Every structure is written in C-alpha cells, then in structure tokens.
C-alpha cells in the first residue's frame, strides 16, 4: 500500500499537524519508503496467532478505590502557556 498527497494531507489533519504543500510532498515520499519497508510483514503466516497485548504475562494490578492524590490545582496549571484562576485558557470553542 502507498499513500498519495491527498492522503498525507488528511492524515496530517487527523494528527493535528499543519503542513505546507512542500512538507506534504516530501512526507509522501518518506512515508511511502517506510510503508514499503513494512510491507514484508505480509509474508508472515499469522493464522491462529494471537496479537500481543502484554510482553510479561501478568494480571492487571488493581488498587483500592480511594483518593491518594489531588488538591494541587496550582501545580497542574503551573506550566500552562495561558491560565486564569487555575483554569487553562484556550481560544473560544463555543459561540
């Protein structure tokens, strides 16, 4: 499988990365080289093989459903580019 310019632009939008016409053209070539490289996986017979979900066979750890952390709103917003009274500020999303 290979990708064309339109697909690259669509994927870039899905990934929320702005691309120029020139970027998209360069990426088309690069992505096709990588997709060409991974194509060889199709030769592998995987019938009856389970997809891997965890490298170490282990039971999912669970913990008591109690509050162990919190009350640190100022820490959470400390690194944000724009805040107001412990809220993250973003451009208007609802008219």
């Amino acid at each position, binding site marked *: *499988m290979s*990708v064309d310019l339109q*697909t*690259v632009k669509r*994927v*870039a*939008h*899905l*990934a*929320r*990365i*702005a*691309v120029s016409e020139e970027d998209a053209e360069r*990426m088309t070539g*690069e*992505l096709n*080289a*990588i*997709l060409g*490289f*991974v*194509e*060889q*996986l*199709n030769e*592998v017979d*995987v019938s009856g*093989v*389970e*997809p*891997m*979900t*965890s*490298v*170490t066979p*282990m039971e*999912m*750890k669970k*913990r008591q459903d109690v509050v162990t952390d919190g009350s*640190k709103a100022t*820490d*959470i*917003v*400390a*690194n*944000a*580019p*724009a805040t107001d009274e412990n809220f*993250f500020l*973003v*451009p*208007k*999303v609802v008219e």
Partner: protein
Amino acid sequence: MSDLTHLTISQARAKLRGKEITAAEITEAYLSAIERANPVLNAYVTVTEDKARDMAKASDAKLAKGEGGALEGIPLGIKDLFGTEGVHTQACSHVLDGFRPRYESTVTTNLWADGAVMLGKLNMDEFAMGSSNETSYYGPVINPWRRSRLDTVVMPTTHQGDGGFVSAGGTRTARTLDNAQLVPGGSSGGSASAVSAFLCAGATATDTGGSIRQPAAFTGTVGIKPTYGRCSRWGIVAFASSLDQAGPIARDVRDAAILLKSMASVDPKDTTSVDRPVPDYEAAIGKPIKGMKVGIPKEYRVDGMPEDIEALWQKGIAWLKDAGAEIVDISLPHTKYALPAYYIVAPAEASSNLARYDGVRYGLRVPGKDIIDMYEKTRAAGFGREVKRRIMIGTYVLSAGYYDAYYLQAQKVRTLIKRDFENVFAAGVDVILTPATPSAAFGVADEDMASDPVKMYLNDIFTVTVNMAGLPGIAVPAGLDAKGLPLGLQLIGRPFDEETLFQTAHVIEQAAGTFQPEKWW
C-alpha cells in the same frame, strides 16, 4: 582534580566511604570537566551546578556520620526524558519549551534516595526518536571517539611517551586522530557521550528499540536495557509505552549493576511495574559461567556486515568458550520481521502518546484563528521532522480501514518474535550472544542516513527484537575496529534474569578490557 572523574563508581564509592575524597570534591571535578568539554561535545542541555553542590554537601554530611546510601555522593547525568522537579525536562523537544515538572520520576527519586548527586540533564534525540542524537532540538551530540590511523615511525630509541610506545626495533606506532566528528548513537547519545568523556560517573538512559545499547556500543561504554517492567516508567516522558524501559549507561559492567540496583523498583504508580524484589546485581559479577549454555543465532549474520564485527563476534564466542560455557547454534526465525513490526507498533503508540502536546497544558503555544488552528500550528512548529514522520505513520496505521492490515498484523508478528525466544530458552539456552550494532559510529550529517529514513532505522536491527519481546539486553564493549572505534557485543537473557547478563558481560569485559577515547576536546 580531574583524575577524580576517571574513578569508576565502585572506586569512587570506596574512596568516599573511606573518607579519602569528599562528594564536594568529586562533584567540583565533574562540573569543571563539563564546563570545558560541553561547548564541544554538547552532551548536557542543562547543568544544575547549584543543585549538584547542595546534594554533594548533604552527601558529605551523611558520609561523615557513616550513613551514606548505595550511591552516596556519586555524580550522575540524567537523560532529558526523565521528569526532574523544577528542572528542565523537555525530551529535547521544542514543543515542551520551558517545561519544569512539579514532580520527580520514580527512577530519579530512587537514585536521589540512595544518595546520588545530579549534575544536569543530558541531550537526546527528540522524544527518544533517532539513532544518532541528531534529531534533538538542542543540536547533535559529538562522540568523544574519533577515527584514527596507525602510523609506524622510526624513532631514536631514547624518545618515548606522548601516547606511543617504543618497540624492540626502535620504531614507534602512533595513532593519528582524524578530525571528522562522529555521532554517539541515539537516542541516549548525551548519556553515552558524557559517560565516555568522563563528564559524569554514570547516566540514566532509556531504550525503546536500542536507545541504550546502540549508543553504548558506539562509545565503548556498558548499557543495559532491563526486562520490561523492571524499572518504573512513572514520570518518564512516554514514547512507545509497551516498549520503553529505563536503564543505566556506565563505564564498566560493575557500575552498570550498581546503578540498575538503585534505579529498579516495584512501583504502584506504574501498573506495568512487576512485583518482584530487586536482586543484588553486583553479587552476580565474578561468578563462573562454566557449563552455561550460550546461544548464537544464525539470523544475526546479515548481508553487508563489516568483517570487523563478524571477527569480534567470533572472539566473543571464543572468550565465553574459554571460560567454560557451552556454545550452541540457535535459530530465531522471525528476527528479520522485528524491525518492520517495530516501525508500526512504536509510531502507533507514539502518535497516541504525543497527542497530549497541544499547546494547552504545557510547553509551546502558537496562536491560531481557532482552537484547531492553534493545535495544528503549535504541533507543526514544536515537533521536528523525525517526530512528525513517526506521528504521521502512527496515525495512518491506526486510521479506519488500516488497523487490521498494519497494527494487528504487527502485534501478531510480535507474538511470533517472542515465541522464537521462548523456544530457545525452553531448550536450555541461558543467554544469547550477538553483535550490538551492524556498524561502528558514523559521521555527523551522514548523507546516506539523512536521505533515507529506513537506513537510519537499520541501526537497531540487532537490538529491536529484545524490546519487541520485553527481554533484558546488555551491550558491552569488546574491541576496536581497524579505525580505532569501539564495537560492542550484546547479550540477551531470560525475562528478569539480568544477573546472568552481568555475570556473562563481566567475562567478556575481563577478556576484552575497557576502552577510553583519546582526549582531543
């Protein structure tokens, strides 16, 4: 003072405990070495002098009372991927501009609890994506090793010294260093360069496809990627969560064992951290390997591999045989599919993990006409080319209609790769010996690598299988090539059997010796 930087961790530990030296002295020695070398090598992206001095002072107070921890007063460098409270933590990306976490990663918390001193944050490939440390927003790291040429010069027999030696016939051989700058490998290039150039006693690193072992091999240092689940991933910037593991880069096998003992822990904050006590890895060093079964996988003999590497592999086999190990030929038939499967699984996980960098909660924000425009502009300006490439691949293989063909297929192949190893271990093999990399360190701005991303990816051909199967792997320096550059061998072990890796790597180290670059910086 500068010779204090040449002590291994075990030597420095003994001198600190014996009060022959102080933590303040060794810390000052490293800080001045960094000040001189860093403008050339670019291994550190930030140096935390004040913090280092404060920590050293606290260590000296503890050592004076005989209360020092396992790493009391030992100065370390920390890869920029580890969250360090109040200190530069950007995964060497522009998108995390100015990020100073309000928390400390579990691995670094463990190190400080054992008394280690933080010298600063080390350069790396952006988000740990790269094999040459050239994708860093902070520029490439330079390898302290350079190529050299052996010259034979006829000398009057009275003249000796300056690095050469006098032979019986009155001729002198001398290595002439080439000026070309080489990469230290990646993604933990800053860690490897700093350890090799004596800019820290040891360093933390991380490995998703080979990012500890490949740079260790390129710089003549020892690097171990432990079993998945051995070190907590909490507080480490995520790249590919099912593959990422932290581990140390050190100057010898014993130092790597000392560091891993402190870094590893059982951590309730990471659900993939495994509930097993951390053994005393150092105790495994020096144990005989007589009767141990060492597997040699035929699939690791690849086309175009330099003769030097094949010869080194044979040497490694001979050393282990001489030490009483039994050598057996083995087959890991799905080896060639590990790298293509990795380039689906890792970008898929990365595209999901890196979705959080949106200009809202931390780091860079580029204003836009609406929120989507702000996201797109922020991410376009904040991520470098390699990171964008991987996010794009990941987004594509996970997008509707392609998931089964790519991601599901790759995860099935991954099961087969792991099964190959399980079969070999079930047949009684204790450890597997392979080369660590398909070449020695290459030049900065190598044109072949720059023009073809897949060529760069091939650097991880021998290391990536280990991540795909979640196994432990160690790279240990084993010799120099014809151009005087270090080459490494890799040992792969059973899950959570890091002890066998240290034990066997030490046998290789005893036979091969340790390697130091000639100082030019």
